[in-house]
């Protein structure tokens, strides 16, 4: 048998040796549906930020600034939680042409 695949690249036993490296894994590529945020409609109630399981709602100084598509898996929870009278986030098919907001 040839040599073992490098321990550096594949640490023995599947150990993760550098803590907190989940950030390096961009789960955004799993997405099949994409949330689109409308800045004009948004009332900054923070429901989307609160419910997003992937911390993918970008917030600066108490205001929503957009969606981090590197980590957003497209679950649609933000769109669902956005209040009915606001509807600032809607879901489109990934790959469809529309402004990312």
């Amino acid at each position, binding site marked *: *048998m040839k*040599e*073992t*695949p490098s321990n550096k*690249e*594949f*640490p*023995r*036993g*599947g*150990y*993760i*040796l550098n*803590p907190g490296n989940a950030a390096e894994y961009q789960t955004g590529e799993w997405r099949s549906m994409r949330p689109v945020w409308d800045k004009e409609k948004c009332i900054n109630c923070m429901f989307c930020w609160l419910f997003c399981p992937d911390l993918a709602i970008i917030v600066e100084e108490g205001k929503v600034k957009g969606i981090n598509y590197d980590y957003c898996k497209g679950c649609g929870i933000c769109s669902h939680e956005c209040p009915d009278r606001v509807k600032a986030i809607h879901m489109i098919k990934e790959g469809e042409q529309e402004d990312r907001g």
Partner: protein
Amino acid sequence: MVQRVALTGNEAVALAMKQMNPDVVAAYPITPQTDIVQFFSQYVANGEVDTEFITVESEHSAMSATVGAVAAGARSMTATSSQGLALMWEILYIASSYRLPIVMPLVNRALSGPINIHCDHSDSMGARDSGWIQLYSENVQEAYDNMVQAVRISEHPDVRLPVMVCQDGFITSHGLENLEVLGDDVVREFIGEFVPENPLLNVKKPVTIGALALPDSYMEFKVQQAQAMSKAAQVVEEISEEFARVSGRKYGLFETYQLQDADIAVMLLNSSAGTARMVVDELRAKGVKAGLLKPRMFRPFPARQLTQALSGLKAVAVMDRAEGFANTGGPLFNDTKAALYDAGVQVKVVNYVYGLGGRDLVPQHVHEVFSDLARIAEGEDPSSLVKYLGVQGGVV
């Protein structure tokens, strides 16, 4: 200091564990392994070991706790038999894939059903693909010696895999035999301190164990495991050399008896080798060139070395104490036959399944096998490649 004592297989294994003084033992009693847990818990109660003994509610928990303890950085052991091993199943694979050095005495017992407490190898043979190294022991001495060596094999930096040390239920585990045991100091010096690799309890270097590995990496980890297994064979031999220097007892990957000039031979694991050796002596006295091969290491399978040893024979009978229900013979037979085919060695190979659920293998059975072999060696076609020995109503 070498001491000659009379112990049962279970006592000898418990003694080896006491001498090795592991940090953690998590075990659940099951016949015929019960004594190991009982004796060891007595050592703990008497303060003769420093071990943290975890009484668990099942074997699934025993193996899980052992995995957790080794991952934390503690030298850890457990022990089981039969249904207990079956209940450990999913965690056996976890232990080997996390590359955790664990030593587990396995007292071979038939798997249910029908429920049965006596010896066969269906338990360990079922676990043959779980990524554990498997060592087999003919008698009490070998069970003790394998235990001491197993720790070194398991913890070797090139291996880092769990090891199962098998002995036959009741026949060896409860049979009182003379053996030589090493001094506590000799054992402790031989095994040395456990050096954990990335232990969870090292707060200065936090690591994650048990993370998800998807199609982009899972296969690499499995190949690493296979490669560690392929290195294990060499390590088993190296440790054996070292063990010979402290004990005077030398083990290889398998033992051969009168095989050098043999025409016909039987191949079998564990205690039945004693019966077969006696029959070989009887046949040799009559001028029959009979021999014996007893594998010590079944996983990884020592294919190259085995085929070399078998290459001079005219016919060999592989005897399996486990039925695989493939209708192509038992596990030892299949691996041996495949190895011979790959090596291009033209030896006639037949299979005998024997001793299931503790059915005795008596010398007469081995004589029957050898007389079949003598005819096969002379060109007779075996009526069937797979036969059952000692079945009521005759050989099937």
